[in-house]
């Protein structure tokens, strides 16, 4: 994927989420809303390394992953609205975006809960002798959960084709990295299981893109899992309820200087006109998504108990 496309993706995520924040204030979107703003380089940089048959496991902060994976902005926005045209029929909402077409196994609202899933998906690929991998996103907070330990151990034992993508944004809600972890070098934590593990600048989409390509290739070669620690930062609050008592404005401003979007635009020497054109095309997509969502329909309440069990036997 060329750098301009990466820029376009990041911008789409950014503007899409800015709109979401607005719509949340307008009570069009409800529940929890976890914004990815600031971290776009990770999703945008990782996804091009995946093939269409690879599986993706994500978190509750997954709008960026979903859009970068190619789920349409329309169906993601409709999901946020709770409309049945949404990618999860309106049953999931912001934290539970799913898409069978792109093998996107969801937003998971249990921190760390997706790790074993990705292991199992990878195991299935391996047992079925297919060349695909499972890519698993999770945060620095998830690394403290027991399932992190269990999953990494098993992934190496089974040489399972998992690409672990740790989005280290230095906070788990209000818990700073060094309050979560006795040793804050998370790559070191992963390396001890016997897999390649490396940090990468998660504010630099080109660096992420390159590292992801290398990592995915290693996984596909059959060598087993690979751990990428993307060091990044969320510019916004943890969720819409968070008064951000735990960090200073100055710290946030410092990180904003490394905003991946203007950063890349500068490197690409984008002209004002080029940027304006890009902004316009992105704005159109976002607008269209809102229109689509607004025009969507509510699932009939009589259908409430559908999807508890499958409607046919396998």
């Amino acid at each position: 994927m060329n750098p301009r496309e990466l820029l376009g993706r990041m911008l789409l995520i950014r503007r899409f989420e800015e709109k979401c924040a607005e719509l949340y204030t307008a009570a069009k979107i409800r529940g929890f809303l976890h914004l990815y703003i600031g971290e776009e380089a990770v999703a945008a940089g990782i996804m091009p390394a995946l093939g269409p048959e690879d599986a993706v496991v994500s978190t509750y902060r997954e709008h960026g992953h979903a859009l970068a994976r190619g789920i349409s902005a329309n169906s993601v926005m409709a999901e946020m609205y709770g409309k049945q045209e949404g990618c999860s029929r309106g049953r999931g909402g912001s934290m539970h975006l799913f898409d069978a077409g792109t093998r996107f196994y969801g937003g998971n609202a249990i921190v760390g809960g997706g790790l074993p899933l990705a292991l199992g998906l990878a195991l299935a690929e391996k047992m079925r002798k297919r060349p695909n991998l499972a890519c698993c996103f999770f945060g620095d907070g998830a690394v403290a959960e027991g399932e992190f330990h269990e999953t990494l151990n098993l992934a190496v034992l089974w040489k399972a084709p998992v690409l672990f993508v740790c989005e280290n944004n230095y906070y788990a809600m209000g818990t700073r990295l060094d309050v979560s972890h006795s040793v804050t070098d998370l790559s070191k934590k992963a390396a001890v299981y016997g897999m390649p593990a490396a940090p990468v600048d998660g504010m630099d989409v080109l660096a992420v893109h390159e590292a992801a390509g290398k990592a995915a290739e290693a996984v596909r070669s059959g060598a087993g899992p690979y751990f990428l620690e993307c060091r990044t930062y969320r510019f916004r609050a943890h969720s819409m309820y968070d008064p951000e008592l735990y960090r200073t404005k100055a710290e946030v401003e410092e990180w904003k200087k490394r905003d991946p979007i203007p950063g890349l635009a500068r490197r690409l020497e984008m002209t004002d006109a080029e940027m304006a054109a890009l902004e316009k095309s992105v704005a159109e997509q976002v607008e269209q998504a809102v229109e689509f969502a607004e025009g969507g329909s509510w699932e009939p309440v009589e259908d409430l108990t559908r999807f508890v069990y499958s409607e046919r036997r396998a």
Partner: protein
Amino acid sequence: MTYREAVRAAIGEAMRKDERVFLMGEDVGRYGGCFAVSKGLLEEFGPERIRDTPLSESTITGAGIGAALGGMRPIVEIMTVNFSMLAADQILNTAATFLHMSGGQFSVPLVIRMATGGGRQLAAQHSHSLEGWFAHIPGIRVLVPATLEDARGMLPTALEDPDPVLIFENASLYNMEGELDENAGAVDIDTAKIRRAGRDITVLTCGACLWKTLEAAKQLEGEGIDAEVIDLRTLRPLDNATLFESVSRTHRALVVEEGWRSGGIAAEISARLMENVFYELDGPVERVCSVEVPMPYARHLEDAALPQPAGIAAAVRKMVKRNG
């Protein structure tokens, strides 16, 4: 004063009174608590006693058990009931069994608090009401404060209990406003309470459903139906005496709970009424519970999945008319 403030006051007072008491959990300190319950406590008590933890539910709970055994009086906050499944092993296999396995030598004076409940469009993994389910486990006590008074008063009593106590705070109540006596303090954690006396039917409920039930009762009053509303307060052990006495008087009983229907606390109460006051019943005990579906995100579907005043009133109406 809000329910949130009542819980905060209870924690603060307990910590001031007894230096063995401390609070630990995810984001209880710097963040101020996921629901802002512990806001300000870090400043007063410092990071040793308002102890932020990493995301490690099982170990936090187990460490609470250990600290309790070691002479402290820990309050472990599991951010929400939805994450309590990660700590289920420590609760069921250790906290609940320790006194027994040790032949009475080691009791576990641990309090575990967690937010519970749905109704805020948080979907399938963030809307559980498992308090009734936890009430299955011998060796623990299960409390469900519905009022400001109980939010303020159950915690100190729980901290005096030598055995593990689980307190479920319905997150939709944190903003509830009300009056609380200046001297409000410890309350009993053994009894159910009649929140509205009535003649025609007993409606048994707890937590956020208490308020929905009282709303329904008010509505029914206008229709000439006089419902007695009982707040269960403690789900384990249940206060049989109060329940049986009331139903023996009204001859009809409805149980309302936010948990899923099958195997919830409503089922247990129905079974106990069957066994103990069968011959007093004018008709079957009925249940209004959550529909058995993982919680949908969409508002209209979530509303339909949860008990609502209208549904409670309708159930009562049907029951009272049936054997009117």
